[in-house]
């Protein structure tokens, strides 16, 4: 028998028997993560189970981040219920509104023990693989059962091996790298599978969160970075482990990437999307809302004001990231450039609070999803990419390659900005031209463009 993949190794370890892909295991959990928008369903599930007390209050982490601070009385009431539940259960690991996105805090505060299984009530719980844990997102009833029993059932997944070689050039980030992987694998190419990242263990923790969290967008059950500093040496897949697929990304030649709405796997090089006009830029989320991301944006902006036709919303992914960005002056620079800085948390990423999209607005976001209606209006369009590209968009009003701006002299920089601003066609909404450009792009690129819903009218 071939040696284990990392997923097989971890699930064998926790279940106490040698298992391979396809086997079912009952896995004991090191942590269960619960967030604000599911608490009612979780409580109802536990009540129905007849097990209203969590199995181990010290292993439960609770967050108020999805709609925080509360935007409506109904949400405020749900948050109040959540706080009472947390107190009644004796749960000490509780992060209230403003502390940040659950996944960021789970990893940066060290709740993700490598080699263990953690389930979370949010689909991006794959993020815990940033530290070497097997993190999987689940629905409210699964979470209710996990809270009651401290265990869950899992089918041991096949694994996909993703290897990174080289170093990205200036202006290219691991967000571009993972978008390149999504472009390769597709939104369902890793369905039920675990994505194991090789050649990424030495990256900063934030980059590892970007990688692991985005595996959700390929349908993965988990995404784990091999050889993280948090993980013991023995936590490595066997050299002869069997993978369902192997993908290698050459970082040396990687270009900045952009995902074209409304699919995360409709990815092209940014160089092919230059000039698409945008109304609003969102820099935030568990994917790219850290101080490193904010620094990249500030670096690119060079103290200039953003284009007056664009709004820039910055939402730090946690209080720690927020404070670090305050301490080193990054937030001051972004504010001086015209950014609005929101409360640490999920922000407008899922369209509930803090700057949702109107009508046919066009957004450029550093987050992880660009589905129709994701950030508000179902007619709005969402492009995804890195903080560098986000900063260029805010500065010029249009999509552009960030690299020339990073290399330019001050005079060249201002000339570039002026040129792009002047080129932006402002007859009508930004979206009118953006929509044309997306259709052109989709027509010329070998992208997936399967109709989402058959019989649905295409909006013109």
């Amino acid at each position, binding site marked *: 028998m071939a040696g284990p993949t990392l997923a097989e190794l971890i699930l064998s370890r926790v279940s106490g028997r040698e298992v391979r892909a396809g086997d079912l295991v009952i896995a004991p959990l090191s942590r269960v993560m619960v967030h604000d928008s599911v608490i*009612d369903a979780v409580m109802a599930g536990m009540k129905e189970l007849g097990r209203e007390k969590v199995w181990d209050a010290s292993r439960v982490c609770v967050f108020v981040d999805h709609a925080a601070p509360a935007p409506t009385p109904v949400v405020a009431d749900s948050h109040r219920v959540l706080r009472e539940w947390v107190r009644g259960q004796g749960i000490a690991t509780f992060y209230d509104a403003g502390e940040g996105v659950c996944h960021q805090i789970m990893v940066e505060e060290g709740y993700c023990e490598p080699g263990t299984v953690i389930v979370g009530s949010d689909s991006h719980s794959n993020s815990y693989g940033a530290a070497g844990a097997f993190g999987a997102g689940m629905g409210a009833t699964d979470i209710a059962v996990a809270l009651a029993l401290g265990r869950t059932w899992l089918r041991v997944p096949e694994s996909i091996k993703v290897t990174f070689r080289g170093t990205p050039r200036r202006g290219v980030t691991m967000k571009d790298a993972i978008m390149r992987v999504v472009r390769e694998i597709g939104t369902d190419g890793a369905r039920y599978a675990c994505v194991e990242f090789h050649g990424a263990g030495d990256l900063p923790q934030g980059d590892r969160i970007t990688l692991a969290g985005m595996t959700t967008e390929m349908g993965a059950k988990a995404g784990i970075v091999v050889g993280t500093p948090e993980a013991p040496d023995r936590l490595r897949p066997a050299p002869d482990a069997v993978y369902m697929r192997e993908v290698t990304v050459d970082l040396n030649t990687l270009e900045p990437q952009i995902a074209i709405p409304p699919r995360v796997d409709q990815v092209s090089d940014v160089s092919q999307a230059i000039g698409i006009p945008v109304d609003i830029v969102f820099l935030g989320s568990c994917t790219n809302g850290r101080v490193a991301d904010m620094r990249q944006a500030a670096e690119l902006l060079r103290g200039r004001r953003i284009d007056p036709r664009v709004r820039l919303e910055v939402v730090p992914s946690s209080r720690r990231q927020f404070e670090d960005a305050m301490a080193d002056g990054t937030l001051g620079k972004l504010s001086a450039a015209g950014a609005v800085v929101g409360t640490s948390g999920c922000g407008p990423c899922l369209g509930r609070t803090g700057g949702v999209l109107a009508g046919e607005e066009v957004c450029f976001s550093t987050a992880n999803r660009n589905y129709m*209606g994701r950030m*508000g209006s179902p007619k709005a369009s969402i492009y995804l990419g890195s903080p560098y590209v986000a900063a260029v968009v805010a500065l010029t009003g249009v999509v552009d390659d960030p690299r020339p701006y990073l290399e330019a002299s001050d005079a060249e920089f201002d000339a570039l900005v002026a040129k792009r601003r002047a080129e932006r066609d402002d007859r009508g909404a930004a979206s009118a031209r953006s929509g044309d450009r997306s259709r052109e792009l989709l027509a010329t690129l070998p992208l997936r463009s399967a109709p989402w*819903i058959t019989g649905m009218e295409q909006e013109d």
Partner: protein
Amino acid sequence: MARAWVFGDDLDTDQMVPGRYAPFMVGQDKFHTYAFCDARPEFAKTVRPGDLLVGGENFGCGSSREYAPAALKKLGVGGIVAKSFARIFFRNCVNLGIPVLEAADAVSLVRDGDDLTLDIAAGVLRTPRGDARLRPLAPFAQEILAAGGVVAYLREHGDFPAVR
């Protein structure tokens, strides 16, 4: 007989119930009335108990929100047959007791509005253009579905079905 509601590939849970209509945004008694409100506005008003959804690849991808399948259950959807399912959605449906079955050719045999019969025991979806063969569910999932969901199963048995 059940009416078919046909969807394509990669139908995401934001389409089933957008985040802005989550139960905790609009209340437990209303969220299901927004099912497919952007994509198929007539759905929530005209779907009848027992109706079946038929889809392509990766049905139910995206957010883990259980209120998406919970809305379908509340509207009485009798089952979902797709080429393949996204993993969290699949688990949520099993947990809630909604039959979810894979069939390679269902989406090509079925037209929106067709009369269908889902015969799980016989392993087929009967359509006006012939039968689509259903891929058998793992015994583990079958046991949970037969009990009406994971909560009902655990109440009855105290633990998960055996895994070996």
